């Protein structure tokens, strides 16, 4: 410790004073002695001492009288009575006056040093000095050095019999807390069996325990054992405290520091989130929403409607995301564009939403409540204010490229609008494919455009900085690349499509205006869909492509069963004579109206086959599928005209970049890690940054919209309170210790004020 505790010795025998002085100064205490009780009393009141050693039998003033008067002026100062005439009455009276100890003379140095040491380091006895002594004068006692108020044992609940707690490093945590005074025992799960209450109670009594702390990932599982044992040992059964690592996201080895602090807080009776996630002022009310799919749109609208400003940043040229590509949505068969475009135009027109499309967030700095985000506005080469969306430029553009929005089923020009209902409904130039941008002569669009100063071929990328208080990340997903499974022939056979390609085919704004046709080749050998080709008479839909598979993604992508059924329904609607075969492993129809939808599809005559084909082979003009029909105990080899692969959902390509930028880690599957999957799915450990939608995990549209609203409500809460929570993802061990110290000291100060 950096300061020497000071002790006042009041005894009218000089020898006692001298010997006390010698004993105590040897131990580096600051000793002041007084032979005169009256003078000693004055000193005790006027100066700050950590402890007073008081004799009882003094001529000038009785020790008990001195003590009672001292207690009126300084009720909290620790006092140890040293007397040569011990008696039961004086002992009782002294303890009534709240002395810490009663020692009889003559005493050995040890008899007096032990109690003094205990008292000096016990915070409750000397907290007042801590509060008065500001950090410049004396360093406050770090939490770990303080004596625990109750004798405690720690029980580590391991996750397996090999003594692992998944994620954090147990030996480090144990080493961290080992030296704290007051810990009587540290136990580990397999060594101390739990089912024998009496054995546990004996151990508790043996170690003089008053409290047990259970530390682990799910300590609540065994709380009952200890509660019963404490009761059997005659202790307060409520003194069983849980230190749960998983609850605060300490689930990786890199979070071992956080786990240490979780245990530390439990030891000292602090709430971890109160200590480590203190509130922070929300400096700026504006919010940044990254991602313009349905999640981003919903969240922006919710926040904007509450009267606060939102920056909605979307990296493609239009908002709408994947939902804009769908034809109909399950289970109601609502047209996706019909329910999405009103929201999209709301966003476009909302006074509180600044829509930044064709922009990417490149850097996030600052802290919760006060972020600075750098945004790269990519050059559109078209003036967004001036463009009327007439489309004349596109008719003159000579370059044709497969359209990304249409999943390659149609061709677009180099100057293009992603789809007719795009918001903003403005054109842009694709530099990689534009002839002029690649150095060749062109400029057809410029010549054709009827508006002056609309197309600007010298446009440049721009970097913008914005300041926001909260961020919501809603960057969505990408579909599994079916080319990775060679056996399925995607990319090899023209009539093997992914579900998204088929959605575009079905859509009225797709290549065939919504008619289902077989894919064929054009004169140059490219694969195209045309209006005037044949229709398929049989279509097979294969589930679980890239999902539920240890070789690709082991999770279930949740939405594919439902959208496969939806596609079957739409095929039956448009081609009533066609046969539709659904090859599945299980049917996951988990939501509201989903199972009823499944029954409806069954009744429509779709053949639902439990059993998956592994290979797709060409058999003449058709595709051959060989699979088991498990429910009918047979093997079927079927030839169909077209196969649709129900591809799963994967995290988007730039999730690594986003993760580094925001500090939000990704879980094993690659999706963003939320604070708690069940209780807090929108919050993250990076303060002030929330996640919403499919980027947190694959989900259907109703769940995405709900989650986006939830994230928005959290943001609005922060804006109303003018406070946000500090993020703990980046905190170092020392910083967390400081926070815990500070909370502890604040609590003591409160205690002092109130009592």
């Amino acid at each position, binding site marked *: 410790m950096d300061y020497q505790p000071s002790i006042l010795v009041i005894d009218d025998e000089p020898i006692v004073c001298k010997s006390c002085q010698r004993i105590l100064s040897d131990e580096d205490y600051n000793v002041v002695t007084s032979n005169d009780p009256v003078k000693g009393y004055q000193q005790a009141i006027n100066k700050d001492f950590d402890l007073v050693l008081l004799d009882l039998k003094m001529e000038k003033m009785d020790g008990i009288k001195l003590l009672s008067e001292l207690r009126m002026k300084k009720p909290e100062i620790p006092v140890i009575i040293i007397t040569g005439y011990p008696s039961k009455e004086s002992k009782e009276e002294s303890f009534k006056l709240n002395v810490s100890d009663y020692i009889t003379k003559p005493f050995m140095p040890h008899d007096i040093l032990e109690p003094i040491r205990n008292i000096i380091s016990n915070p409750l006895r000397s907290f007042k000095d801590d509060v008065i002594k500001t950090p410049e004068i004396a360093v406050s006692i770090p939490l770990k050095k303080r004596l625990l108020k109750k004798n405690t044992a720690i029980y580590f609940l391991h996750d397996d019999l090999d003594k692992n707690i998944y994620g954090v490093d147990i030996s480090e945590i144990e080493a961290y807390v080992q030296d704290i005074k007051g810990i009587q025992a540290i136990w580990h799960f397999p060594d101390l069996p739990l089912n024998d209450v009496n054995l546990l109670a004996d151990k508790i009594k043996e170690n003089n325990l008053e409290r047990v702390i259970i530390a682990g990932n799910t300590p609540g599982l065994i709380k009952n054992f200890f509660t019963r044992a404490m009761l059997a040992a005659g202790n307060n059964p409520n003194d069983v405290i849980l230190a749960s690592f998983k609850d605060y996201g300490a689930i990786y080895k890199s979070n071992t520091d956080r786990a240490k602090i979780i245990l530390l807080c439990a030891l000292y009776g602090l709430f971890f989130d109160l200590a480590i996630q203190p509130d922070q002022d929300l400096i700026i009310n504006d919010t940044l929403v990254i991602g313009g799919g349905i999640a981003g749109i919903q969240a922006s609208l919710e926040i904007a409607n509450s009267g606060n400003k939102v920056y909605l940043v979307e990296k493609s040229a239009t908002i709408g995301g994947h939902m804009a590509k769908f034809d109909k949505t399950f289970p109601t068969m609502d047209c996706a564009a019909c329910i999405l475009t009103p929201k999209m135009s709301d966003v476009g027109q909302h006074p509180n939403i600044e829509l930044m499309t064709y922009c990417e967030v490149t850097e996030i700095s600052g802290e919760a409540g006060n972020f600075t985000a750098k945004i790269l506005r990519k050059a559109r080469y078209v003036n967004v204010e001036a463009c009327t969306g007439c489309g004349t430029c596109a008719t003159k553009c000579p370059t044709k490229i497969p359209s990304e929005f249409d999943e390659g089923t149609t061709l677009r020009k180099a100057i293009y609008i992603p789809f007719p209902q795009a918001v903003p409904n403005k054109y842009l130039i694709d530099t990689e494919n534009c002839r002029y941008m690649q150095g060749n002569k062109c400029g057809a669009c410029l010549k054709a455009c009827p508006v002056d100063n609309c197309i600007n071929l010298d446009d440049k990328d721009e970097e913008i900085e914005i300041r926001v208080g909260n961020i919501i990340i809603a960057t969505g997903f990408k579909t599994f690349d079916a080319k990775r499974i060679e056996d399925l022939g995607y990319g090899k056979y023209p009539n093997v499509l992914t579900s998204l390609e088929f959605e575009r085919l079905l859509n009225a704004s797709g290549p065939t205006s919504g008619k289902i046709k077989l894919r064929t080749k054009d004169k140059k050998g490219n694969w195209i869909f045309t209006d005037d080709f044949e229709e398929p008479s049989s279509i097979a839909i294969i589930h679980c492509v890239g999902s*539920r*598979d240890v070789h690709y993604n082991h999770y279930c992508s949740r939405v594919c069963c439902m959208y496969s059924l939806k596609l079957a329904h739409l095929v039956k609607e448009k081609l009533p004579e066609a046969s539709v075969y659904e090859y599945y492993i299980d049917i996951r129809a988990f939501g509201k109206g989903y199972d009823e939808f499944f029954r409806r599809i069954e009744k429509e005559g779709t053949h639902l086959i439990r*059993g*998956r084909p*592994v290979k797709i082979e060409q058999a003449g003009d058709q595709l051959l599928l060989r*699979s*088991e029909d*498990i429910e009918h*105990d047979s*093997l079927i080899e079927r030839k169909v005209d077209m196969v649709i692969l129900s591809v799963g959902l994967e995290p988007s390509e730039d999730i690594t970049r986003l993760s580094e930028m925001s500090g939000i880690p990704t879980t094993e599957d690659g999706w963003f890690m939320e604070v708690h999957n069940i209780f807090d799915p929108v919050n993250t450990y990076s303060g002030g940054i929330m996640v919403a939608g499919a980027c947190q995990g694959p989900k259907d549209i109703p769940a995405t919209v709900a989650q986006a609203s939830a994230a928005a409500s959290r943001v609005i809460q922060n804006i109303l309170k003018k406070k946000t929570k500090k993020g703990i993802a980046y905190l170092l061990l020392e910083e967390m210790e400081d926070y815990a110290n500070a909370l502890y000291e604040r609590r003591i100060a409160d205690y002092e004020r109130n009592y």
Partner: protein
Amino acid sequence: MREIINPDLYVNLKQFGAKEWNDCYQCGNCTAICSLTESKLLFPRKPIRFLQMGLKNELEACLEPWMCYYCGECSEKCPRDANPGELMMILRRYLTAAYDWIGLARRIYSSKTWEFVLIFILSALVLLLFIFFHGPLTTELTPEGGVQLNVFAPANIIHIGDMIMAGLLSFFLLSNIFNMYLKTIRRKNIKVPFKLYIKELWLLIFNFAFQWKFRKCDARFYWIIHLLLVSGYVTLFVIIVGFLTWFQTDQIFEWWHPQRIIGYYATITLLLGVIYFIIGRIKKSGERSKYSHISDWTFLVMLFLTILSGILVHIFRITGLPMLTYVMYVLHLMVLTPMLMIEVPFSKWSHLAYRPFAIYFSNIIKSTIRTENSPSECT
């Protein structure tokens, strides 16, 4: 029909090498990719389902495990890594133990002690027989310079021993096959017209000789090597059981003489086959070689040692080294006897009978059902 399930069925299979059985989520990928599956012959998913559900009787009545030649494609394509190929291998061991009415097979598969003690007992028996009954250890050579092996071990006496062993083997094997018939056709209560047994007999012989179904597997090279090995084995078996006195001669013929050529052919094919399979298991090159149970190794190793000792007997005999010849001959018989007596009726080699018979029985059942239209079960 009420069926009592056996919840401990999996525990039984652990002794045959099964580690995981619950990973399979019944997607049917394995059945779809297998080139040998047909309607009414669905595997590996279906037997694994019986295993998961504890349907012991159904499993014992199942002929499907014998239809599989372990190309390993199912294990490659399984999305759960449930290892259906290896589970089929384990089921084959299980069925071998189930058909064996004596109970030795189960012990041999589950306990290394039993296996090695039995090998030791049989080897010791052979050794003792030689110690007490061997002919004179003559060091006189034949006019051609060869060892007079038939003085030490007269071929006609050895021949008697051969035939006793063949008789015992056949008895055990055939009785086990009868047990297989009881558990499969009889248990399913399928009334098979007797003529059908005769009609389909050609199939039994054809498959036994040529493993015709095996060639449908994608690993055709494996079928060819196996076929060569079988041809070598069959040749030697026929010669030794039928014509030992002609084969075990002290004369040294020219190398192109049938007695030598046939012997060389058999030896080379056997050797190549065994070495190919051993290397496969050491390098774990394909799915089928990744998991080796102790029974897999004892089979290969004993066969290899038999071939090796046989080669050495031949070399020592024609180069005129009497004592070495006699020693090597005894060793040869000490390895050969346990190998045949244990492996053929009670362990891995039983597949030489069970596979063709399984194909035979399943065809009989299929034809019967076709004519009778009775409900289909696991054939």
